[in-house]
């Protein structure tokens, strides 16, 4: 089982679109996939027409694993299950802080799901907290959507700096360009320049697309209602790129 996270310090870069569409592409590729919506906003859950997760006790790793398991919902797409978000997740930092091995609890919780899934994909909220640190230590790979803009470049550099400071393995960060517009000169320049500074950059580029925004109307993954649009094709290509790399392959 591989644990993949969709993470960025910055909001609005396409993390949830990545989580939902990559999860769909992974199950299309035959991987039993569990999407864990850790963002209290619950956008990923909304796209799958799921209600919030029911409240559960979060005393320790065991009770958290049990609570998460009880909240697993089968999506409309066989092979893809979701643990929907819950506003209580905003308190996860405090709860984790009170536990022993507080930076590694999430990994041991997710180990519980190993027999049932090939991939666990986490949609993370945009911040750096104790939960984020748990995500970093639990993940095998962290996918970082980067809009080819100056601000996004800055947040990527903040993230890599944090990894260096915390002595986390930087090679698990796999940025890729998201919401890219080839007509924009700035986008083109940053896309030419940034990967040279970050060798882990994935090659697939997710183009900006109005079809992605319509996910909220359709309330389903993009490839499910518009399988041939450029963005849907790009998400599949991103999935294929991940599966083609031995270190990333679930």
């Amino acid at each position: 089982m591989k644990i993949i996270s969709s993470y960025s310090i910055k909001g609005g870069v396409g993390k949830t679109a990545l989580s939902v569409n990559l999860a769909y592409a992974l199950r299309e590729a035959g991987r039993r996939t569990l999407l864990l919506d850790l963002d209290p906003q619950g956008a990923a859950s909304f796209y799958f027409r799921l209600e919030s997760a029911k409240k559960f006790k979060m005393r320790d790793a065991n009770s958290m694993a049990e609570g998460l398991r009880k909240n697993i919902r089968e999506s409309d797409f066989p092979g893809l299950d979701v643990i929907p978000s819950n506003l209580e997740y905003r308190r996860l930092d405090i709860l984790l802080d009170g536990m022993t091995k507080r930076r590694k609890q999430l990994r041991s919780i997710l180990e519980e799901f190993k027999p049932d899934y090939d991939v666990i994909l986490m949609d993370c909220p945009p911040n750096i907290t104790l939960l984020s640190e748990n995500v970093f230590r639990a993940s095998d790979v962290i996918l970082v959507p980067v809009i080819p803009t100056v601000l996004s470049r800055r947040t990527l550099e903040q993230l890599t700096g944090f990894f260096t400071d915390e002595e986390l393995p930087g090679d698990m960060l796999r940025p890729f360009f998201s919401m890219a517009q080839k007509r924009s000169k700035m986008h083109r320049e940053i896309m030419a320049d940034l990967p040279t500074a970050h060798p882990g950059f994935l090659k697939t580029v997710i183009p900006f697309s109005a079809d992605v925004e319509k996910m909220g109307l359709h309330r389903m993954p993009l490839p499910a209602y518009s399988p041939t649009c450029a963005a849907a094709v790009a998400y599949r290509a991103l999935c294929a790129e991940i599966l083609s790399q031995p270190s990333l392959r679930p």
Partner: protein
Amino acid sequence: MQNMTSERLILPVGVGAEFLLDEWSCEIRQQESRLLTFWDTFEWGVWFSGHLLYSCEGVYHLCTREEGWPGIELCEEKSVGRRRFWNEFATPEMRAKLEGMLGLRGLAPVVEGTFRRRQDDLRNGVGKIVCRLEWLIVSLGKQQEELLHSCRVIPLLGYEAEADRLEAYLFQAGAKISGEGPLELLLRQSDRIPREYTLRPPFGLKSETPAREAVGRVVRSMLEIATGTVPGILSDLDTEFLHDYRICLRKIRSVLTLVKEVYPAEETLRMRQILGDLARQTNRLRDLDVYLLARDEYLELLPPGLRPALDEMFDDFSAERGIEVRRVISKLRAHSWSRLMGEIEECFSPKNPHPPSPASALPVGPLVFRCIYKRYRKIRVIATEIGVESSDDAVHQLRIQCKKLRYLMEFFAELIPREEVTALQKLLRRLQSRLGEFNDASVQQQTLLNYWEEKKSGSDVALGLGGLVSILYHRQQQVRSLILQAVKEFCDDATAASFKKVFKQPLSVLTTTPPRSSQS
């Protein structure tokens, strides 16, 4: 991630997806209709191994049988023509699975049914799928009339409560938990009930049952099985119908000989003659079946270079078999055959007022035990003369006596304390198996030599036949030493003591004046 399963509900007429639309949002999909032909052998080998084999649109499917429902599909195979034997299938998986279920038996269609399936999605208020509904309507053959209308509610993980609510709604509308599956219903409608098939049925005997009644029951059971094999012989579905027909006739003849004086002597003689005549009509066909079934085994005995030489012989056997089948079929369809079978039936009918005979009213238990013990002692005497130099004929005589003993122990197995004879039967089986191997090798050599005598074919064939005869001769000599060992075990003092303990009866049991038989 779990596979949620649920009960299949049998629905009353009119309760379909449309019925749910008042309460739920249900996405009704296209219905798929398929005509399935289910296949099995005369012995229901597929059914009793817990499987189903069906064909549909040129594809054979083998699946598990789950209480009369097709379960998990194990393998499938496309087929242009009809498949009869396991080795006519091409895929290794299908062959491996069917070999054990079919043995030498041929497949025949047992029933046809139209299966109309549809899978709908049931959605909640926000349009999320909460359950999948599997509808199934089954009709006999190509008919439209519904034999079974069922629905399975499969909740998506996390939505079990919705499924419970839906099931409760269906129960209120008259749904029931499935009892019989579609297969059971189809088979019952077409009067095809799977029954265990055996050549060793229980006869319901007790030790004190009068001998004539006991032997009569054995004969009538065997006769019924023999008659049941005839349609299979006529259709030439497989070789085992004829094989079993012959075994039944032989067993009837044997029981009349082995338990003497149960019926009047002249009637016994007449019946034995009729049974012998009926069996002889099929001798050549059975011989040819045996050779042709052993074709691969024969060929494997020879080096690859010599194998094509034997093709000519097998082609001759195969052609002759075609002629023999037609001849046997015409015999079985002839009036004389029906008349002879009728005479046997009449003779052994419980209503037939035969006069009493010396053993007719004796209790069958002591009588048969005495026969068994006598037969065993006879075998012991013959066995003392068996050695490395014994003639094939002497070994053959020992084989015949052992077969008679086994028949006696088989016919009257219900009367024999099983725990005391298990070890004895094991020794007998081992000895018989060795004697059988010896005899087969001897008969096969003779057959090959006879074929050569008759055909005088080319040198290639001679080479192949010669090779085979010498291998068979060598095999026969190897079996000899094994026979001696098996004889030693079967006839040693400990085994003799066991036979004596179980089967020896005081003479007085048989010398008391019997009461008049109720049948006589």
